[in-house]
């Protein structure tokens, strides 16, 4: 059935489409500006007004300097290490914890689950955590960052919801056939809950990629800084000048501008490139993580 569209509705549709288009521009403009400025000459960036929608005096100079910088390289390496090792630990511990929470007939399930969930509501605070990590001698090591981020209780709850959606009869029949906990977890539950596992893995991965705070309090040696911390140094503490040795003062200032944008692109592109392809998983995570109706 085709319902006749009145002129008010046409007007509304029109307005809506335009409004959404403007919103998209607001969302994308800063990103376009960054990408275009990263290909522009430093002096041109300083002279330009407003958002740069097209490279000015197209050049790869900023990227050459950024990639030539050893801190960007070590930052990438540290972040990749934290990402790969951290995510592996995240996945193992989170699935085990979630599996434990879904077990029946386990005497200490309640108290141990409570122990885990309570931490979502109360924490000892930043300073005692800092002193504890320092106390066990992890200060100055990337392992401190990995340990503190080893489990997110929120993600564990998402994983538990994923396991809960699998029919209990499957697990029971496997148990009757003599399958142990490891077997049940890895041969039955994880393959069936793969989409949920993908969701939490992505959450953890993006979290590791973007995190900087714990590294900033635990790691003192700039050679061990993860990428975001290197980025903070360049963007917010204005350390870009050290990348431009051998240039005159005004050149340093100008080149620093381009480098800023180049490092933002280098540090953000990986996430933004994979995101559209994995969008449905991320979105699914929001749905699972949201309170159930």
């Amino acid at each position: 059935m085709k319902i006749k569209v009145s002129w008010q509705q046409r007007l509304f549709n029109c307005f809506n489409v335009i409004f959404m288009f403007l919103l998209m521009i607001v969302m994308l403009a800063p990103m376009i500006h960054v990408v275009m400025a990263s290909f522009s000459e430093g002096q041109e960036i300083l002279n330009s007004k407003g958002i740069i929608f097209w490279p000015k005096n197209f050049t790869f100079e900023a990227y050459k300097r950024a990639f030539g910088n050893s801190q960007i390289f070590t930052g990438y390496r540290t972040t990749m290490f934290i990402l790969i090792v951290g995510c592996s630990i995240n996945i193992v511990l989170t699935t085990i914890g979630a599996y434990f929470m879904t077990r029946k007939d386990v005497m200490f399930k309640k108290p141990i689950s409570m122990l885990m969930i309570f931490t979502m509501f109360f924490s000892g605070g930043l300073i005692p955590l800092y002193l504890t990590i320092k106390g066990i001698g992890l200060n100055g090591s990337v392992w401190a960052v990995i340990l503190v981020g080893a489990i997110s209780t929120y993600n564990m709850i998402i994983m538990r919801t994923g396991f809960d959606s699998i029919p209990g009869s499957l697990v029971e029949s496997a148990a009757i056939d003599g399958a142990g906990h490891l077997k049940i977890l890895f041969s039955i539950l994880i393959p069936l809950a793969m989409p949920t596992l993908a969701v939490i893995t992505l959450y953890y991965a993006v979290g590791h990629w973007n995190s900087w705070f714990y590294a900033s309090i635990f790691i003192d040696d700039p050679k061990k800084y993860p990428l975001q911390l290197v980025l903070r140094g360049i963007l917010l503490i204005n350390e870009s000048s050290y990348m431009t040795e051998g240039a005159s003062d005004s050149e340093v200032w100008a080149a620093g501008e381009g480098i800023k944008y180049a490092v933002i692109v280098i540090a953000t592109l990986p996430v933004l490139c994979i995101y559209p392809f994995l969008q449905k998983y991320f979105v699914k995570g929001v749905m699972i993580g949201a309170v159930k109706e």
Partner: protein
Amino acid sequence: MRTPKTSTVTAAKKPFKERFLRDMKKNYSLYLLILPVIAFYVIVHYVPMYGAIIAFKNYSPAKGILGSAWCGLKNFKEFFGSVYFSRTLINTLRISSLGIVFGFTAPIVLALFINELRSRAYSRIVQTVTYLPHFISLVVICGLLSDFCATDGVITDICVKLGMERQNMLRVPEYFTSIYIASDVWQTVGWGSIIYLAALSGIDSSLYEAAKIDGANRWKQILHVDIPGIMPTIITLLILKMGSIMSVGYEKIILLYNPLTMEKADVISSFVYRKGLLEANYGYSTAVGLFNSVINMMFVVSANMISRKLNGTSLW
């Protein structure tokens, strides 16, 4: 209330020791598996909770947590008596409540608009684009802000056109909250709309048909079908959001603030960070953090209780 399952009925009657041994025999491998998880929670969450007792002590690193002398409520009294107490408390409440007003309503409005788009393809593009900022790291966001709000920055240019004075906007205390909230809305509006879009797609289509037959135009449909349809979701999320009113994260604050804006920007958590980690005033900052944690927990727990009472949904 609880009805034990048939398999546990016999077990429940036996004495604790027997049940314990049976459980250990049956589930020892599970307990072995969970051991690293428990170790994580003990080290990263419970040891620090115990360590929080230094809030009541004159902590000195040389003497350690146990060796330091007790000082009662001295640290708390010092905080409540200082200018920082009202300043950080007011800043926390201002930033979080304005964050709720704008950060909470914007995704609802966006979801309603996206839901009204007739073209599915266009709607997908809008969604993909508006979700994007969610994935940009805070360091980059704050780096961009410090660039765009600089004296010759893009945002400053726009504000000058609107009749404001040309200056570095991040150095003006009065602008801090606006910059903080606006960038927050920019980053989270799309991502926050996901949940409402899902709720909207769950509305029975016969309701729209009925509304059309009754002569309701699109605006009326939004008002009388869409909004009532997502009301339970809105209320639940609002209550949960209210629970976090006393917690403004330190990460974005400490990236954005500077000595000039501190009087408007310093919140409780950033104060704890500064006193504790930068000035190494451990006992005092732990006390401030503990005060915040306790208030926070009261808000979160009561928000959850209200939510559960009202519509049976809660975080746990």
